[in-house]
């Protein structure tokens, strides 16, 4: 049993009571909702004649279904429009703050909440989306929930949860130039497997983690779920406080000083006990790309696509399936694999610094002939800041499309989709079969800078070859 970790401390603060089933009733400090997983929850609430217990602790936005080319209402897709109208109506009925299209604060839920300062250390955060783990970057305990649980949180501001074990993933050293947070998390998932984290909260710690920006930390925690961990978190430090300072919903004045004192007290003790600990050498990691159909099937840009026969027995079948589905040959280098579509965006890598890093690769170059490449900012704020910095121009000049904010092709619940057997270089989080909107479309996950490099060369490329001094 872990003790003295941030997870333990936050858990204790939010424990309401023990439930008969052996789980704990846990209070939810921040509940984020969006159009996909909330409508049925509101219906259930309505059927049961229940109210929203603390409407001011729930915050809504729209992200999954929004088109990224033209956001004029009504949306051209009537089903998407109906989902948005339903959310608007529910928010109005129950007095929930809604950050809609044109509010200047709409965006992918895991991008907009942090940038508004809604996500803070020591909170419990829940949202009907598995990538809620993102908010752990602030030292919050944040997890994805299903729609029945969205209903429970609306009704009671709490959840029935079982306490997780805590695994500390200590990352030594520092990332090489051209290696990003995305590479680090793909590397970790490769090491521990896509279900390695089941039953665990992941504490990411160590020198390489401390050196990451808040945006890099969000990328890491965002994909903790892809390693099977229900949540991932990083202890808050000066980087965290610096990011939060002055944000719209951050504490101000005396409250700010008190907040910092409390936040510092939550950090895992030096003598904290973990259920498991592993060490990773951050400086040995190279740009990493997935070649298969789970986020665990990643290799460094220098490696060859594994031969299923040479893998451990329990990985052979899925590797065989993956080679067949991806139409990639075992023992071939991943570098040089031809690409059709390049997508920069998503809750993993649709933040300002992601766009900035990618734009450095793109600047002064052209997208390779025949490649469709596009950038989708994670939020209206990201879009605005990027424009102020002229980042949109860099991409447009190079031949990228510049879109309106939304989840876009990460899961393709909107018009952005792969077609047929197209293969994409994608900065998103999942390479599952059919994930990007075509039943047989293919996805290679990589960092935004690597996607940019792929767009320029028309094939999977070691971004370090395009880095300018």
């Amino acid at each position, binding site marked *: 049993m872990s003790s003295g970790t941030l997870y333990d401390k936050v858990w204790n*603060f*939010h*424990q*309401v*009571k023990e*439930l*008969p*089933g*052996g*789980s704990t009733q846990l*209070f939810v*400090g921040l509940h984020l909702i969006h159009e996909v*997983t909330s*409508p*049925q929850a509101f*219906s259930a609430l309505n059927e*049961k004649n*229940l109210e929203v*217990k*603390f409407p001011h*602790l729930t915050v809504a936005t729209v992200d999954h*279904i929004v088109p990224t080319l033209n956001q004029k209402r009504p949306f051209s*897709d009537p089903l*998407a429009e109906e989902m948005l109208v339903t959310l608007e109506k529910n928010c109005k009925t129950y007095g929930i703050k809604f950050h809609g299209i044109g509010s200047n604060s709409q965006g992918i839920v895991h991008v907009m909440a942090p940038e508004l300062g809604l996500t*803070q250390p020591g*909170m419990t955060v829940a949202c*009907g*989306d*598995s990538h809620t783990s993102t908010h752990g970057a602030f030292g919050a305990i944040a997890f*994805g929930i*299903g*729609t*029945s*649980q969205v*209903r*429970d949180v609306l*009704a*009671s501001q*709490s*959840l*029935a949860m*079982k306490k997780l074990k805590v695994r500390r993933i200590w990352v030594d050293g520092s990332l090489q130039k051209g290696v990003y947070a995305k590479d680090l998390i793909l590397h970790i998932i490769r090491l521990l497997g*896509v*279900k390695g984290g*089941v*039953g665990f909260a992941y504490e990411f710690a160590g020198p390489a983690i401390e050196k990451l920006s808040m945006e890099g930390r969000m990328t890491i925690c965002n994909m903790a779920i892809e390693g*099977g961990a229900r949540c991932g978190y990083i202890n808050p430090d000066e980087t965290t406080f610096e990011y939060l300072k002055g944000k719209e919903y951050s504490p101000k004045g005396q*409250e700010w000083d*008190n*907040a910092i004192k*409390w936040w510092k007290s939550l950090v895992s003790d030096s003598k904290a006990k973990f259920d498991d600990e592993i060490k990773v050498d951050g400086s040995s990691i190279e740009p990493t790309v997935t070649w298969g159909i*789970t986020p665990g099937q990643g290799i460094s840009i220098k490696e060859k696509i594994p031969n299923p026969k040479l893998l451990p027995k*329990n990985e052979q*079948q*899925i590797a065989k399936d993956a080679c067949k589905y991806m139409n990639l040959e075992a023992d071939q280098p991943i570098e040089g694999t031809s690409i059709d579509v390049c997508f920069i965006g998503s809750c993993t890598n649709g933040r300002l610094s992601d766009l900035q890093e990618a734009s450095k690769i793109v600047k002064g170059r052209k997208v390779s002939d025949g490649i469709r490449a596009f950038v989708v900012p994670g939020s209206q704020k990201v879009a605005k800041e990027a424009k102020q910095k002229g980042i949109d121009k860099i991409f447009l000049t190079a031949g990228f499309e510049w879109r309106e904010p939304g989840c876009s092709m990460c899961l393709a*619940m909107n018009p952005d989709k792969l077609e047929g057997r197209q293969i994409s270089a994608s900065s998103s989080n999942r390479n*599952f*079969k*059919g994930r990007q909107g075509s*039943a047989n479309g293919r996805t290679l996950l990589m960092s935004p800078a690597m996607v940019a490099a792929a767009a320029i060369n028309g094939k999977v490329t070691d971004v370090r070859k395009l880095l300018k001094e």
Partner: protein
Amino acid sequence: MKQEFPKGEINAITGRSLVIKGDDIDTDRIIPARFLKCVSFSSLGEQVFADDRKELQGKHPFDLDQNQGSNILVVNDNFGCGSSREHAPQALMRWGIRLIIGESFAEIFFGNCLALGIPCMTASKQEITKLQNLVNENSNQIWDFNLKELSISNQKESFRLDLEGGAYKMLYSGKWDATSQLLDAEEKINNTVKNLPYLNNFK
């Protein structure tokens, strides 16, 4: 025909089984994202495994004649990984699935199933393979699931299953629908609120 969904204590389930083979079957495959464009779960049953079924042109286990009306699904490792969409268990439930047996389940998927009253039982790889083979040899056989004894059996064979204690108690007592239990603690919820620094101006 109006479907009966799980209610009350889930102590026994009887019916025919079907098999989906493969590790790491994610919720995108169980219900592709484009079907999430809905404000109600009601039509999801028809769309379960839509892309896999299309690809196999009628040969997918969910399309085979002999599997129609089956209510027990036997799967492999890390079933239900990926997205938290409750649409996945909803789609399975609305197709008719009432019990899932597998090597292991992703956590959110497991919790979503529990919230619908669908037990996700586990057994070793070896046992699952054996069970899957038996089911595939004769899809007509009737299986009896007994929660109390943690077993599933036909007339000849019996398999020992596992379920963690909390979920067991919730299904056994019929208290897997958590809302009313959570609402019972109103005073304690209010106390928690009073003691949370960030809800009290960090005083």
